């Protein structure tokens, strides 16, 4: 087991988890910059508390908690930004690196998933957390985590291949 505090090259650890963490944080915050703020705070907090890097569920729980605090703290600004984005239909920073239109459509479909399904999907697909870890991070049962995941996949399938 590798301890993050004793790990000199924290950058390599962070490089591995950062894309997934940012994607996870983007669920609650509008901009990539805000997501980076949230991830930075969570990661540094995690590091300071001497947690093991393998304990990704805890890292995700920290990101989630800080993101929710961020929303509460900055709800007025977030609402204003959300309105501005809706009104002007401005270009929003992509959450994924697309290779083709199918991937673009898939990424857009993910944005329309309900929040509780999207967070499970992000943790499962892009961070390879087990359902037990996801359940621990979100404070739900493993069965609930698994069913949310299946619902998310089904919703994406239906969106991309309408009946």
């Amino acid at each position: 087991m590798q301890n993050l505090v004793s790990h000199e090259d924290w950058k390599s650890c962070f490089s591995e988890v950062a894309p997934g963490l940012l994607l996870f944080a983007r669920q609650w915050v509008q901009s990539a910059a805000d997501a980076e703020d949230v991830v930075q705070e969570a990661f540094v907090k995690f590091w300071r508390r001497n947690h093991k890097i393998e304990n990704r569920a805890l890292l995700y729980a920290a990101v989630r908690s800080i993101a929710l605090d961020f929303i509460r703290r900055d709800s007025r600004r977030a609402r204003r930004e959300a309105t501005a984005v809706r009104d002007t239909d401005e270009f929003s920073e992509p959450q994924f690196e697309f290779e083709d239109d199918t991937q673009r459509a898939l990424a857009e479909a993910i944005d329309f998933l309900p929040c509780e399904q999207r967070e499970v999907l992000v943790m499962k697909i892009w961070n390879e957390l087990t359902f037990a870890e996801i359940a621990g991070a979100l404070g739900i049962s493993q069965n609930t985590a698994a069913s949310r995941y299946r619902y998310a996949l089904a919703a994406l399938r239906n969106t991309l291949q309408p009946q």
Partner: protein
Amino acid sequence: MNDLSQIEKELRKLRPARPSPILFERIEEAMIDCRAVASPAIKPERLRYNRLSLGFGLAAAAVLVLFAAVKMERQESGKEIAQTSREPEAAPLLNRAQKSTSTDKFVPAGATRLVYNTRDEGLQFASRSGQPLRRMRYQTHETWQWRNPTTGASLRVSYPSEEVVLIPVSGQ
């Protein structure tokens, strides 16, 4: 993409956006800040201890001032110099002053108690109680003043004093 494993496979091909290089720099700075704060392990303890001592010192000084004020008030209500018998040093001086100036009584005109040194002598346990007590030693300089309203003569007595106060410490 008819079944769920197919969509799962498609999702795995999708790569999340990379974090900006600035984020790495920011985290690195935050890590350095953390280390700078965390490395002198004894320092925060010492700081806390000093703050605690300062807090106790200020609280005790406030109590002493309050005590002096209450005592002064009592003296004023009695208007009898003999009531300041707690300070035996003051009595002979007072009697001398009374004899030398007037038959009228002197009345208290002021009292100050300056705490010029506070020393924390650590924790101790009282014989019957399990609760720890913090032993604080205060070195003060007290000044008492009396005035004869008839003649306008005044008398001032100053002397150093030392007091040990035991403050109960509650555990957290």
